[in-house]
């Protein structure tokens, strides 16, 4: 999906963020479906459906990870590295 979106739409997706953030995944699905509909791209529409069906429910559970598992990337609740700035 990442490769197809880049090749066909020019949009570059962040696959790591896609795998852990449900809102971002929803946006990518929305964008892909919109593009697929306007361009008549059945292949991209199929991939968007698969992503919506598989990834989003899984990640809805993973978006609130236990503190112990995430101490390397999340310092305080709601604070994710590089969201508020580089430093």
């Amino acid at each position, binding site marked *: 999906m990442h490769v197809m979106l880049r090749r066909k739409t*020019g*949009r*570059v997706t*962040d696959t*790591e*963020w896609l795998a852990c*953030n449900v809102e*971002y995944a929803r946006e990518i699905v929305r964008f892909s479906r919109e593009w697929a509909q306007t361009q008549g791209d059945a292949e991209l529409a199929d991939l968007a459906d698969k992503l919506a069906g598989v990834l989003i429910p899984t990640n809805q559970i993973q978006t609130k990870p236990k503190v112990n598992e995430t101490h390397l990337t999340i*310092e305080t609740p709601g604070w*994710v*590295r*590089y*969201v*508020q*700035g*580089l*430093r």
Partner: protein
Amino acid sequence: MRIRQLLCLFMWMLGIHGFAVAQDIGQTPVPQLSQPASGDTSAAALPTSQVAPTEAVAAPAAINPPAPTRPGLVPQSQINAADTAWMLTSTALVLLMTLPGIALFYGGMVRRKNFINTLASVVAIAAVVTLLWFAVGYSIAFTPGSYYLGGLDRLWFSGLDYMKEGGQVAVSHIAPHLPESVFSMYQLSFAIITAALVVGAVVERMKFSALLWFMGLWSVVVYAPIAHWVWEPGGWLTQLGVLDFAGGSVVHINAGVTGLVCAYVLGPRKGYGKEPFQPFNLGLTMVGTGLLWVGWFGFNAGSSLAADGRAGLAMAVTQISAAAGAIAWMAGEWVVRGRPSLLGLCSGAVAGLVAITPAAGFVTPRAALLIGVAAGLACYWGATGLKRLLGADDSLDVFGVHGIGGIVGSLLTGLLASKAVGGSVGHLDVQLIGVLVVVAYSAVMSLVLLWATRWMVGLRVDDNTEQVGLDLSLHREQLGN
């Protein structure tokens, strides 16, 4: 629209050129400067720093030929070969700080999709500022004129002669022991890096054309006048006694404040504060930091404008302050966040380098240690706590590091300047005035120029361009996998 802009630019350039030619034709012969003995490196022949404090050069003038007050021609025998060699080296070092130092330092911190645009911005700014410096910037910054602006004698480098057969070469009154071509190139490298620093505040959303228009105008309207005020002996801040050895206010406060104003006017990047903006490659940022650190020896030690003891001391205090800044930032981050980061170490080193810049030719090594520690901690706060307070998306913390570091360094120069080192005693109140003046002028004029740029070409890319990334959208280029 674009054609009209290009035409306007071309006509403007022609107009200036025509004026320069007219100046050449109508001008009286270039004055011959006094001639110190060959190889003379006494205080009368050499300015003590870019700042050239009046009290430092006044005393020896009684026993030596009077120092020149204008640029002019001198016999080549007056040129000091060792100083010239050092200044050629320093010029290359300072240019290396921008190309590729700043480019890599900033490029490593932006997202992958904007890496090429960041590099292109730095390269293009270096080229634009070079041509403008040649056309007008150098003349209005470093020739005698009024308290507020230099003269027009050196537009298009007119009079910047080297005559092999006559055995004469043009020199600046600020550095009469160096060819003026070397002096002007050295100052150009400062003009370039100051403009390039601003890129860090506007990356990932500013139009490329807008960036070039803005920075071009800014280098003439903001940078050159401030350089005149602080570094030309007749400038009003020099006369007031403001100390700025290598550019704490002219370069760093100026760039930091402009960056902050740009960040406010442009608005935040799409998704700022909601999505993680993962830096492309902090390894490149570290490489850029290394180039900056090494190049800073040309920046600070070169500002002595001579290969002398003061340059040596400037180099020593530069190293000490950089190290102290890196350790202080690392310690602060370790205490607050629980982990020291590579970016923190790099940022701390730059903070220390920034803060020692105005002080380098005026303070002792122990004072440099204090300045470095203060800058490391202050800039860490500037790039984190203060950044949140200000609420602007200063993308790569130009104000937090350069603005705050410059202010800390300039004020501490007022407290710590040693008469034994630089021949001048600092005054905190005078330094504060210098800081406030530069902050105010830089902020107001940047705002005006941003409005002008918005009117000409617009400032920001559209949402889709920003989403896709500026590399592909603006340059039709992309990094490989």
